[in-house]
């Protein structure tokens, strides 16, 4: 989830949006909240284009941007509604956070902030205890399994100081009393185009692709206080897993575990090992038990072969005995035999 206001904040958000999409998260899983007043602003001399670098190499506001909440829809109320899922019935699905108890959520916020607050559209504030309350409600309603909150504002770490829900990891670009600085000024546009924390985050991710297993630890360790000119502080007391075991694609990308199968759909009596779901916990005992089940099932089938029971395994038997010839060929032979049998029987009975 993003929120945005000034040029560099919009550039921050859009660049992270682009990174996250590149690493595999589809638009239907991203809720993008932008104030969206920069791309077509009359003071932007590159209309409909947003850059995050003064070399202007990458137009962030290209064809592939789907903004869910823009302009005056970006309010604290809507933000909290998105988090807790308490929408009015007319709100479309694309604007809802449709997560369940197994979801990993990345929440990225950037803008102007201060001690225990974040500014929304220059007339509202999101307070840290409101955020903590919303996260607590999310946990109650089983709307996430793991949540990473990333904040790039001044005194960012204060925003998540009130959090108490388990499974939440939070990192902010600066600590209480520190400012977060922008990275560089684009003299052509006349404003700063990206913040330092986001810049270094993006730099870390540019080296990765979807299948990298760089860990969160390496991400967090890549923030150098001398480069950021602030201390990136992260809070991991609520998060139970060790950070060096968690890949960044856990939150920033979308990697699904694929199991290779030989054909599109397998039959009902398959005794392949590939079909057995290995338990995620990698309990060795479980693994051994599952293997035993597989071999037991296979020996059952062999018994069926020998006993020649009339269950629907007999076609398997027949095909195995035909040494795995293609069933189409078998059918062709069967049809031919049928015709020959018909001819012979007719001739015999004449």
């Amino acid at each position: 989830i993003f929120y945005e206001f000034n040029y560099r904040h919009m550039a921050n958000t859009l660049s992270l949006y682009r990174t996250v999409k590149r690493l595999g998260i589809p638009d239907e899983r991203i809720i993008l909240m932008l104030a969206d007043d920069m791309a077509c602003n009359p003071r932007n001399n590159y209309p409909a284009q947003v850059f995050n670098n003064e070399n202007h190499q990458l137009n962030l506001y290209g064809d592939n941007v789907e903004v869910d909440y823009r302009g005056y829809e970006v309010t604290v109320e809507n933000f909290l509604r998105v988090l807790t899922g308490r929408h009015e019935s007319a709100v479309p699905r694309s604007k809802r956070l449709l997560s369940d108890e197994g979801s990993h959520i990345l929440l990225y916020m950037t803008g102007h902030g201060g001690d225990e607050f974040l500014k929304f559209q220059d007339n509202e504030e999101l307070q840290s205890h409101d955020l903590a309350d919303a996260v607590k409600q999310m946990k109650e309603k089983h709307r996430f399994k793991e949540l990473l909150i990333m904040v790039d504002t001044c005194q960012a770490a204060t925003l998540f100081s009130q959090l108490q829900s388990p499974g939440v990891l939070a990192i902010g670009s600066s600590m209480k009393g520190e400012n977060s600085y922008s990275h560089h000024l684009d003299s052509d546009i006349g404003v700063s185009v990206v913040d330092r924390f986001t810049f270094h985050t993006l730099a870390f991710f540019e080296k990765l692709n979807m299948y990298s297993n760089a860990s969160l630890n390496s991400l967090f360790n890549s923030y150098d206080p001398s480069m950021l000119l602030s201390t990136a502080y992260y809070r991991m007391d609520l998060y139970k897993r060790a950070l060096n075991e968690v890949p960044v694609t856990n939150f920033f990308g979308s990697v699904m575990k694929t199991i290779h199968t030989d054909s599109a759909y397998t039959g009902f009596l398959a005794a392949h090992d590939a079909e057995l779901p290995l338990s995620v916990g990698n309990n060795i005992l479980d693994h051994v038990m599952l293997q035993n089940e597989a071999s037991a099932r296979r020996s059952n089938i062999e018994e069926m072969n020998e006993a020649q029971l009339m269950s629907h395994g007999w076609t398997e038997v027949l095909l195995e005995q035909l040494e795995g010839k293609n069933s189409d060929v078998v059918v062709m032979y069967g049809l031919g035999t049928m015709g020959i049998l018909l001819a012979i029987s007719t001739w015999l009975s004449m």
Partner: protein
Amino acid sequence: MEIRHYWSMAVAAVGFRLVLVLFGGDLHLASRPEVSTPLTSLRRLAEGYWLKQVSMSPYSGSMYHGSPLLLSVLGPLTSKRSGGHHSHIYCSSLVFVAVDFIAAMLIRSTGRTLQMARNRSLKSLDLTKSVNNSVNVSAGDTASLIYLWNPWTIITCVGSCTSPIENLMVVIMLHGACSRLAPLAAFGYVMATHLSLYPAILILPVALLLGYGPDTPPTKVFLQKGLSANKIDMSDNGKGTSQKGFGQFSWKPILHFILWVFIWSCYVLSLNSIILNKVGGLQEMFEKTYGFILTVKDLSPNIGVLWYFFAEVFDFFRSFFLIVFNMNIIFMVLPLAIRLKHRPCFLAFVYTAIVAMLKSYPSAGDSALYLGLLGLFANELAEMQFTFFLFFGYIGVSLLSPVMHNLWIWRGTGNANFYFATGLAYTCLQVTIPLCEHNIECS
């Protein structure tokens, strides 16, 4: 009496079909609801074949509802695309032309068998003089020519549907039964029932044909002859021979038939389960073919009467009316069998006419079949009433039905009632034919 130029007319019919296949691409017969139904459409077969090729069940998505054997035989033909975008149509249409020709030849030989049996029985009744006097065209030749030149048959053959194969199986069954070849009859019966459910009721005429032999005049005639006063001696002999020759019901062919039905059905079911090995099995096949036929799930318009009714029936009564419509066919089976047991071939014809009228997805192919069989009884046709009405009724329906369909669907100036009216008129015609024939037979 043979028909002159029989072979030239037969070959001309085949040539005409070939011309239509090669050059009639604009007719778009495959998209007409009178020709292709959800059960017989070749386009659906191609879809089912493609689904099977990607290891999915051919019945998924409710497109294909036919037999897996047809998938294996016709499937590869529908997907060949070498040399021109119509070549796949060529292969399958040539197959159907060949199938039609074989069916016509079998009808011809069935007619010959019937003719010979009738001449034999008439001779035993010393009616040969009247036989020679009356108009006596060769029933087989007439029937096969009617079958070949019937416009409905030609449209079915050219219009990419699998009805010609179903018709061929029914004709094989009748031929085998008339010639008392139990394996052939059993094969035709099993395949016809497998491809479309309704020929199952033809087991009665087939059993009667195998038991009694082909059509004979009613036993009453024999008994009357036996009781004629002038030839008491002959009458005793005649009654004896008649009872021995014609009134006896022999069980041996029936038992052979049952045995061969059992063998063929086991064979066909095992082939089907091999084809559907990994993708759903026989239960799904029965559910999606027979279940689909009996529960009328697809209500797209056709030339029958069920779609209109089931489009407006309330869900609460739907099962009741399904039972009513299916029982409608079953209830006609037994009384007709009792009435016409001495003429099993005619009984088969009446059954095919009833099925063509009352089945859930009728098409032009069904009427092609029974109009062809009608020709087998050509000798009686000479006395049929209403021939003018029937003949022009058929022409009228076959011309108006596509027009009404166009008005309804494409132009929007008509509605479903227009099209359904032609369907109703068609059903009335079909009812009239067996009624008239029946009156003649039993008078």
